[in-house]
């Protein structure tokens, strides 16, 4: 019988070493895999760190390397504390961007008060001049985003508060402006009483829409088609907002203006039409061949949503396939719209948003359904995409979504999604800004005393009592 010799200690040591190295290698490989396959779960109630799928896709396809520098300098005032929080959020969002695409790199984040030497070096190297901005560099191009782009502060009785923040949107838009070779050009027509982008009056102006479009990297211009103006070459989208809150009422587009729009469409340009509540827009001869017509009367459901006036309605019927409404369909249940008339839609056009079946066409403005008033559903937003070479047309059966008072919430998202589709970048940027999601626990003096009692006396005391109980019971046994 042969006895197998025991392995020598050296051999065992070698085996152990090999095993340990193997385990270390497995851990290394697992981490290398995990590093490249980031899987992040956002457990916050409002999913505030979740990037929209379109933003992720946009970041993945970023054509250039982008370096980002964020110099900050904050004081101790209430406003500065809010600013610091918003910039902190911006830095976190940029780090999320970086996780999606490592070539979108946060190169420097610094407090210039703490590190003045580094700040001086950065100013010299990159030619940046002011703190509290997010600077983005791609080769020799650069963009910056200021606090005003990221959020809004509102004064209240309790001091300044963060009214709204739009950090991911502003940063995505800046990135897009930076890497995009040519910015899309959008032209608003004027001369017929159309709502104008230069109207910055509160509530009735277009300030919010203009800011949103500019953030999206869109160049805005306007042209008076009534007084011999033309649509310049290179314009991507023409907007006709056929309604007015100004002294001059809207008048239908004349022959010349219509001819200009027709030429633009035939050349492959895209058109956004926001129709008047009633009467003609002057565009009927252009829209009808595309399958889009209008009916008289305002669509009404009896709901007071969306402004509460006649025609205010909640809409929950979207085209699930179309790029303009697909994202909205997956994210929200209803969109509140105000003062829409009804469209008729036939191929090649398709209805993107449709009123509920119980809606009716309000014709006497009594707000009550009369037997002679037709029942829904009614198309409210329609799109038409002609054959190869011809442009995209989007029609809203109301011009009101453009004004500040109604450019909000899901209605705003719907309109911006429309602009994304027309400028042929179907939504790389996330939607509307959010109100500050932070929750507060405010303690009055009585609550503070209660907390003191509970946290420092009752709770620790209960643990000691349990301990003494268990221990004495064990001793008794």
């Amino acid at each position, binding site marked *: 019988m042969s006895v197998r010799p025991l392995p020598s*200690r050296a051999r*065992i040591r070698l085996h*152990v070493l090999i*095993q*340990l190295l193997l*385990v*270390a290698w*497995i*851990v290394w490989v*697992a*981490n290398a*895999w*995990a*590093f490249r*396959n*980031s*899987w*992040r*779960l*956002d*457990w*916050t*109630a409002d999913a*505030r*760190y979740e990037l929209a799928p379109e933003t992720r896709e946009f970041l993945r396809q970023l054509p250039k390397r982008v*370096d980002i520098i964020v110099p900050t300098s904050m004081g101790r005032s209430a406003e500065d504390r809010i600013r610091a929080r918003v910039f902190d959020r911006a830095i*976190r969002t940029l*780090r999320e961007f970086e996780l999606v695409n490592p070539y979108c*790199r*946060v*190169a*420097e*984040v610094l407090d210039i008060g703490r590190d003045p030497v580094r700040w001086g070096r950065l100013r010299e190297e990159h030619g940046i001049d002011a703190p509290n901005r997010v600077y983005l560099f791609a080769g020799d191009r650069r963009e910056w985003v200021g606090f005003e782009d990221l959020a809004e502060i509102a004064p209240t009785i309790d001091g300044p508060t963060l009214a709204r923040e739009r950090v991911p949107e502003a940063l995505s838009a800046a990135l897009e402006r930076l890497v995009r070779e040519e910015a899309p050009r959008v032209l608003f027509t004027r001369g017929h009483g159309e709502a104008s982008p230069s109207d910055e009056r509160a509530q009735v102006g277009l300030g919010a829409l203009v800011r949103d479009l500019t953030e999206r990297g869109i160049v805005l211009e306007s042209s008076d088609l009534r007084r011999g103006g033309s649509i310049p070459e290179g314009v991507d989208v023409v907007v006709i907002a056929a309604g007015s809150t100004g002294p001059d009422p809207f008048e239908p587009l004349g022959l010349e203006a219509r001819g200009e729009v027709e030429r633009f469409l035939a050349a492959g340009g895209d058109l956004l039409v926001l129709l008047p509540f009633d009467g003609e827009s002057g565009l009927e001869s252009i829209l009808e061949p595309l399958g889009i017509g209008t009916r008289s009367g305002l669509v009404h459901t009896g709901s007071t949503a969306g402004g509460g006036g006649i025609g205010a309605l909640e809409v929950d019927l979207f085209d699930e396939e179309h790029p303009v409404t697909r994202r909205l369909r997956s994210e929200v249940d209803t969109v509140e719209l105000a003062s829409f008339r009804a469209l008729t839609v036939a191929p090649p056009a398709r209805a993107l948003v449709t009123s509920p079946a119980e809606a009716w066409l309000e014709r006497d403005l009594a707000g009550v359904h009369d037997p002679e008033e037709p029942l829904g559903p009614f198309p409210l937003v329609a799109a038409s995409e002609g054959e190869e070479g011809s442009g995209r047309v989007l029609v809203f059966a109301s011009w009101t979504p453009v004004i500040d008072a109604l450019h909000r919430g899901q209605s705003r998202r719907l309109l911006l999604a429309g602009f994304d589709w027309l400028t042929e970048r179907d939504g790389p940027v996330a939607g509307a800004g959010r109100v500050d*999601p*932070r*929750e*507060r*626990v*405010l*303690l009055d003096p009585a*609550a*503070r005393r209660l*907390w*003191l009692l*509970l*946290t*420092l006396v009752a*709770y*620790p005391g209960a*643990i*000691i009592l*349990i*301990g*003494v109980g*268990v*221990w004495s019971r*064990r001793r008794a046994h």
Partner: protein
Amino acid sequence: MSRTPGDLTSARVRWGSQTLAIARREWASLFASPMAYIVLFVFVLVQGATFRFHTILFDGDMDLVTASTFGGATFWLLWLLVPPLVTMRSFAEERRTGTFELLVTTGVGDGPQILGKWLAAWGFLALLWGSVLPLFLLAELHGSLDWGIVASALVGVLLSNALLVSIGIFSSTLSQNQLVAAVVAFSLNLTIFLANQLRALFPPSAIESRFFEYISIPYHFARDFCLGVVDLRTLVLYLGLALALGFAAGKVLERRRWA
């Protein structure tokens, strides 16, 4: 003679029951003495005081209170100190008193011993950190808070403590002296903690900086857990290192058979 599937199953069952028996024994011995309750009392007292202080300091902003509870100076002090104190006795004490050899002669393998002690220590730390939950429930009574952030911070604490317990158990296998085991574990914990500071030595875009970011637990808390985000990478890192250290601890115990 080759093993049948039935043999393998019964071996697995035996392995599992031995692990649970060891975990129960360790857990019971922890609570048999008043020490566990004293630790829990001090822990709750400190956390309660800092929680109340932070709630007033941050004007009731619960996002900041959560971030401070799981990322402030008190948190990191407890995070560094408590696991070595809980794990230092696991093997060092058994080897010093000779109960370890006794346990080995009963046929309990190294694996069940390590895993059983790991489970008991990790369970105790989970209980310690879970004791902050009533404070958040109290906050919920006076307002509302984002429980997702609290949950992700707790997940971060539990995952990182899984690694710290492995470090502590590994250190405990190296020496018969509890104090030495605790000092070794504390030093290793401190090294992991200070990796965060090493990031500052390199430009943010440098590969070294990214490496230290990747292994820095305070950075993971600041960037992810305290904000309500759980990243698969931290899960793989902490559990991978915990398993590797558990394996290394097994090899150290195995050394007594051939050294």
